[in-house]
């Protein structure tokens, strides 16, 4: 068997294993979806009028449109915490030692985790998106191409954050530590342009919100779904995603090799 077909075959076996875990124990993923859904409802129904007035908008329904792209990306940030936790749990189990003594593709365990987590993120985005539609979010002006681009961006961003989360999971001694170290992935959207425009923030804070991966991704998604201007944000979002994915990939795989001492 060629090494590529070995990699594909073993990774898909590992993916099946991870999806089986997720199906058997959905509570981890579902719990992680609570945060974005709660924040969505909170910001729309509790703070919605104030927020939209502050942005000079025409009420709650307009704020729904503003906040949903950020919430969708936050959903990804939240679900990949599950990847960090399950990788850390996995690495503390004897089954990993068994995999290492078998003639299988070395990275298939990690690749299985990553693809499984990306699929779960996308499922989470679909679920949270359904809630958004139910409370009045509409993206009627977007073309099919823009929809496809939006989907592609979500997948790419999920891939990037998942590799980072897997690295965090590899670097953590146990599931609890992994969940703590992956916390920034759900906190970063709070200090991005997800809830308020950057120019409405205090001057000293604006760079923090500006120069981080969530803001360009949110602006791009907003532009694709709602027709607002994208500008440089499209390229920035792709660059951030590719960079983070590469960083997380090399971090995770080198950690995986390091354990072999």
């Amino acid at each position, binding site marked *: *068997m060629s090494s590529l077909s070995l990699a594909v*075959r*073993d990774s898909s*076996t590992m993916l*099946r*294993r991870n999806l*089986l*875990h997720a199906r*058997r*124990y959905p509570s981890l993923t579902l719990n992680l979806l609570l945060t974005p859904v709660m924040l969505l409802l909170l910001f729309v129904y509790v703070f919605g009028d104030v927020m939209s007035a502050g942005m000079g908008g025409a009420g709650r329904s307009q704020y729904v449109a503003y906040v949903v792209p950020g919430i969708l990306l936050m959903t990804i940030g939240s679900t990949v915490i599950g990847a960090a936790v399950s990788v850390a749990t996995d690495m503390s*189990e*004897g*089954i990993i*030692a*068994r*995999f*290492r*003594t*078998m*003639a*299988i593709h070395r990275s298939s365990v990690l690749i299985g985790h990553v693809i499984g987590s990306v699929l779960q993120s996308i499922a989470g985005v679909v679920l949270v998106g359904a809630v958004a539609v139910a409370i009045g979010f509409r993206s009627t002006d977007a073309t099919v191409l823009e929809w496809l681009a939006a989907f592609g961006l979500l997948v790419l961003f999920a891939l990037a954050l998942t590799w980072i989360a897997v690295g965090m999971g590899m670097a953590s001694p146990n599931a609890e530590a992994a969940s703590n170290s992956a916390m920034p992935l759900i906190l970063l959207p709070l200090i991005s342009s997800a809830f308020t425009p950057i120019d409405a923030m205090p001057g000293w804070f604006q760079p923090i919100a500006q120069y981080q991966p969530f803001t360009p991704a949110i602006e791009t998604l907003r532009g694709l779904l709602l027709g607002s201007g994208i500008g440089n944000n499209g390229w920035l979002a792709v660059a951030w995603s590719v960079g983070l994915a590469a960083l997380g990939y090399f971090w995770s795989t080198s950690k995986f090799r390091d354990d*072999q*001492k």
Partner: protein
Amino acid sequence: MTNLAIAAHGLRKSYGDKTVLDGVDLAVPEGTVFSLLGPNGAGKTTAVKILSTLIGADAGDLRVAGHDLATAPQAVRAAIGVTGQFSAVDGLITGEENMLLMADLHHLSRREGRRVAAGLLERFGLTEAAKKPASTYSGGMKRRLDIAMTLVGDPRIIFLDEPTTGLDPRSRHNMWQIIRELVTGGVTVFLTTQYLEEADELADRIAVLNDGKIAAEGTAEELKRLVPGGHVRLRFTDPAAYRSAASALREAARDDESLTLRIPGDGSQRELRSLLARLDSAGIEADELTVHTPDLDDVFFALTGSDTAPDHQPKETVR
């Protein structure tokens, strides 16, 4: 000489300035059971981890199934099966799913995988529990599942790192039976244990590992001959017979309290015959005659320093 399944020459491994394995030589012929025996911390698990490609050695010429560990680890992995000290089952999925996972990773077809998984689950008495999550299994069941998973790929060489530690006596005997069956099928077994009885029961050859070095190597019988302590014991009920025997056998150590005599010796047939001849010619009949050969416990404590010995009384062996 038959082919060697495992050959190690000058195996060394240290962590920082702590030397774990200090020049270990091993030679395990195909189709035999080899037992690495040693106290906790002797380096048994490290040796298994190195030979099963989990960690690298610092030095040594190491070959498993004819492949060099340093240059062809993937070829070694294709030939071996490993059951480590800690359970290597996926607790979140069922026993059957664990087996099918192994079948997939060995690239068996779906049909073949199902057949192999069902066969092994049956063989290890896990058919009834097959649909339950492995995390709900008892210790003995987990071990059985662990070994069953190891056997999916039909490995020619199996590493078992303390396979019976923490098992109750019945499960332990079941495990021994399983290991014997494996060997009948021509598999080579590399077994580590801290139970001397286990090595004695199962192993064709035993190496005693102490402080990172092989302190002794051989069959159980050969090892037992290494240490003194063999003797014949004569017990009497009649004090008069005891006294006349004691005067006839001047070299015997006397125990006047229990009316027993200990005659040192290796327990060989010739020695016994001459002893019996002397007793006959003196007209002495002992009420009980037992031959004590040193057992592996004696060997173990002699070789590894007896200050760490658990409270274990040497047993009398009647032959």
